């Protein structure tokens, strides 16, 4: 075989190997999605999304309470965790030295924290003070969200060229206004992506919910009490003895994953749009 033919062969073998491995990587994701759609597609109807649950032996009933509850807990968690993550990220992006390095190490360690530990933290601090409640669950979510938001914010702000900062400072702008008026807007796409990645990261977390709220079948948006949530509902329904609830667990799982997917697509769309507008 000639040298050239050998190189063509090597090229083809390598390409095929890469493709095969990529398929292997995608396979679990696709099969999970496929199972969810297969079992859950029939369950998910408008009525399923918008009605409160019925008794196990009666037909019908939906997961409105869990969708609302997840919305409240994730929303409150984001309101608590995102500003904290943004501020820490801004600090890390703008400062060098020992103190920043220490903070970065702590945040990285937090990123690896098991979610049940965040839940137990919320249990010890918030549940002990105000009881099982949406507040407790939301603060556990906030703790989980901070590392993701911090690191992606830092990365996004660091991509802003130093020349923008110089330009702003040279016009007599203090550092905080430079951050607010120049650096943050220039990195907005990346910062927003990080924020929503943080939201997507926690939306499906179950462990922190188990120790901060008690499962409830009632429709409520009051975070002072326990709320129903999608992950907890899936967990309860999935191990239930009633076939109807097992089926609804599949439906709820499909809804949850579609919500996370929708968030991701939204983020991509928004940052792409922004980039096109600014590049002119």
């Amino acid at each position, binding site marked *: 075989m000639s040298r050239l033919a050998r190189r063509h062969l090597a090229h083809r073998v390598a390409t095929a190997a890469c493709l095969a491995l990529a398929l292997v990587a995608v396979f679990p994701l696709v099969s999970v999605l496929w199972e969810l759609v297969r079992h859950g597609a029939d369950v998910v109807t408008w009525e399923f999304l918008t009605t409160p649950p019925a008794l196990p032996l009666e037909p019908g009933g939906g997961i409105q309470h869990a969708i609302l509850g997840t919305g409240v807990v994730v929303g409150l968690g984001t309101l608590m965790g995102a500003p904290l993550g943004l501020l820490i990220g801004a600090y890390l992006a703008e400062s060098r030295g020992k103190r920043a390095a220490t903070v970065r190490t702590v945040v990285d360690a937090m990123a690896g924290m098991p979610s049940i530990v965040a839940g137990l933290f919320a249990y010890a601090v918030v549940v002990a003070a105000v009881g099982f409640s949406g507040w407790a669950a939301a603060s556990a979510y906030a703790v989980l969200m901070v590392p993701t938001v911090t690191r992606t914010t830092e990365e996004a702000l660091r991509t802003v060229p130093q020349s923008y900062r110089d*330009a*702003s400072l*040279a*016009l*007599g*702008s203090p550092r905080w206004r430079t951050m607010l008026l120049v650096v943050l*807007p220039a990195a907005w796409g990346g910062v927003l992506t990080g924020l929503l990645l943080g939201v997507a990261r926690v939306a499906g977390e179950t462990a922190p919910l188990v120790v901060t709220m008690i499962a409830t079948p009632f429709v409520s948006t009051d975070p002072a009490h326990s709320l129903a949530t999608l992950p907890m509902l899936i967990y309860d329904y999935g191990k239930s003895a009633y076939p109807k609830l097992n089926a609804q667990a599949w439906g709820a799982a499909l809804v949850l994953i579609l919500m996370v997917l929708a968030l991701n697509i939204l983020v991509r769309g928004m940052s792409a749009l922004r980039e096109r507008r600014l590049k*002119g």
Partner: protein
Amino acid sequence: MQKAIRVKALDVHYGRSRALKSVSMDIPERSVVALIGPSGCGKSTFLRCLNRMNDTVPGAKVEGDVEVDGHSVYRNGTDVVELRRQVGMVFQKPNPFPKSIRDNVLFGPRLHRRMDRAECDRVLESSLRRAAIWDEVKDRLDAPAMGLSGGQQQRLCIARALAVEPRILLMDEPCSALDPIATAKIEELIQDLKKELTVVMVTHNMQQAARASDYTGFFYLGELVEFGTTKQVFENPREKRTEDYVTGRFG
């Protein structure tokens, strides 16, 4: 003649290396000063000391003093924000913000005072006119600044600096990223500006220094080797090193 800037025995260290060695210079008002010298000789460091942009460089240490309009720049309690309003700066690479042309020009003025619509429009037009770019952009003031050509971007950056009405304008190789036609426009502009303000400009282009400036300072290895009228420095240099450099024998 009134002095716009007085530099007294300025020393700058970056970590352990000494970037400027006891530089003193008096810059007369409403003149154009060119700073020349090989790369890494301290010209930009010197320039960035005049509006304290070296504050942002980690490990930079400044000794000696700079006076702008009789006020010390490095004494305790100097308001850096106010200083930079008086001493504007244009950078080597055009660096407009990723915003509209209008927002770029109005960025500075809006930082320092509240302005109504009419005043915004007035500042916008006069700044762009002074930077000789008004005619090229007047129909697309809300277009992104990033869509302009390099030369236009640089003139926009000059307009942005002028909009806060500085008394001194520092320019760090303002033409090195531009073609000859854009360069000619900026040089012309500098001649207009000197009627109202003092321009200190770093340049690697010997002809530019000779054409555009009233005074020239030659830096070498962190020292100010020679400072005098441009005519004297180029035609009758006192120092051998200056002569070698301006005649192109080294550097």
